């Protein structure tokens, strides 16, 4: 059976997942919180990678769905008094509907135009969210004051939800590596005109992965909102989140299943370790690290194995 044949990377990932499921039993609150942050970034960066790394469409507005997920989850919990997980699932549906409507026209833009268009869209979404309550009279985002959620039921729930999301995103990327859908996306990413001439319905495929990626980002945003118990539009629609996703993917390895989690791990730990030692200057050090990785490992952290193998064989990569 083809789909049961696992490569060494996939077996290692499954073993790691098993260890991570047991990790809270052996770790303290701080380690669990840090791991949750890493999973969150792995899920976000991984979702961005599904579209950019496979279909070659550089989306600079994924944060829209992070914000939509957070506010929709909060509204369903506060106004409809639904349980967290039910609200989260429904908020994902809201994000998918918006992504379908937004993706249909914007995904027809190519290259830099798509990137600029989505960046503008995200900024507009932020302004709209800030003004929503005042404009519509429907309380949803709380304007610049934001929305407070009830204090949540301990940190273990968030550890496991974020772990599930990161695993789901990674599994989706692995599936893209061997499925018909994934080959279609890669064809679009490498040469969209030729893909179209070879029978690939490029708009439909791109929209599918865009909507799927929006769903995963919205779930992550909804979980993060409840976890932090306070959300406001400036933070949850902020372009900084988008750029952090992009940097993590580029550091880890664009278009690879394990690149985004590696990038998330590396950058989160670097910020945590350097941030506690050099409170005022750690951002400079992180900048230097990012430049160094992109100079010496152009394929990202996930490409290091290949890089070393080709060095040993005496071939320039």
């Amino acid at each position, binding site marked *: 059976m083809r789909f049961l044949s696992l490569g060494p990377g996939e077996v290692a990932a499954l073993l790691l997942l098993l260890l991570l499921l047991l990790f809270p039993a052996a770790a303290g609150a701080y380690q669990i919180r840090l791991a949750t942050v890493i999973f969150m970034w792995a899920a976000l960066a991984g979702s961005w990678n599904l579209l950019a790394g496979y279909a070659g469409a550089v989306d600079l507005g994924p944060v829209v769905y992070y914000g939509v997920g957070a506010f929709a989850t909060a509204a369903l919990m506060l106004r409809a008094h639904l349980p967290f997980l039910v609200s989260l699932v429904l908020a994902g549906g809201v994000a998918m509907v918006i992504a379908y409507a937004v993706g249909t026209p914007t995904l027809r833009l190519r290259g830099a135009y798509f990137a600029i268009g989505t960046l503008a869209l995200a900024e507009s979404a932020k302004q709209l969210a800030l003004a929503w309550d005042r404009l519509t009279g429907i309380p949803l985002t709380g304007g610049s004051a934001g929305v407070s959620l009830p204090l949540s039921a301990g940190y273990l729930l968030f550890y496991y939800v974020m772990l599930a999301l990161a695993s789901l995103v990674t599994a989706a990327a692995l599936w893209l590596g061997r499925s*018909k859908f994934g080959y279609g996306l890669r064809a679009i990413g490498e*040469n969209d005109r030729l893909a*179209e*001439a070879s*029978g690939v*319905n*490029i708009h439909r495929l791109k929209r599918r992965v865009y909507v799927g990626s929006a769903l995963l980002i919205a779930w992550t945003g909804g979980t993060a909102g409840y976890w932090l118990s306070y959300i406001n539009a400036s933070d949850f629609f902020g372009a900084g989140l988008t750029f952090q996703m992009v940097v993590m993917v580029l550091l880890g390895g664009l278009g690879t299943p394990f690149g985004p989690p590696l990038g998330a791990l590396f950058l989160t730990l670097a910020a945590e370790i350097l941030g506690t030692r050099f409170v005022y200057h750690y951002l400079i050090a992180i900048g230097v690290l990012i430049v160094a990785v992109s100079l010496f490992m152009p394929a990202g952290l996930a490409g290091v194995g290949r890089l070393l193998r080709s060095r040993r064989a005496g071939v320039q990569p």
Partner: protein
Amino acid sequence: MSILEVRALTKSFGSLVALDRVDLKLAEGEILGIIGPNGAGKSTLFNLIAGLERPSAGAVYYRGAAISGLTTDAVCRLGITKTFQIPQLFPRMSVLENVFVAGLYGKGASLGPARYQAETWLEFVGLADKAAAAAETLSLPERRRLDLARVLATDARVLLLDENMAGLNQREVAASVALLRQVRDRGRSLMVIEHIMRAIADLADRVLVLNYGEKIAEGRPRDVMRDPAVIKAYLGEAYT
């Protein structure tokens, strides 16, 4: 009934008429050569038929049904596809994967059969030993053969080949002519844009000559090449 029919097909870019009321019919299993000077509208004709551009007027019929207005991918799945004047490929995919994708989406095959068929088509065009290489490492003649394998894998019945022999040496051209005859024997109908007259004379059942967007001659290759209008517009006096 002809497999492909073009009626009064016209394309204007602003005030420039790139293709002016061209009619043509392609019979099933036929090889139709398209010749004419640069800028005569040959590639525009192909782009209109394959759905890369929309006609300003006129229509294209495939097996009797109008197809103008369909997108390129829909036209391909229906049964018409083209190669590109500058051979196109998926650079970082393997040679096999380039053909494999066309089978998956053009033909609608599932993973197993598409892989097997891709191997068969690579064998057919003589690229089997390059199957695992990255497509971007291929030489120009190899890229042309890969492009041919790709359009064959889509299972399209009408293939539009845009200068598939340009840049090949004499021996490679002869091999290419033989290969295209075999393609026809496998149930494909071909339209071939080519500047190499010897190849067209060898290969085509009929030839259509375009000049400034208009059809100026059509017929058997030997007759067309003696046509004074064709000699004046394209071949030049020295050819006779």
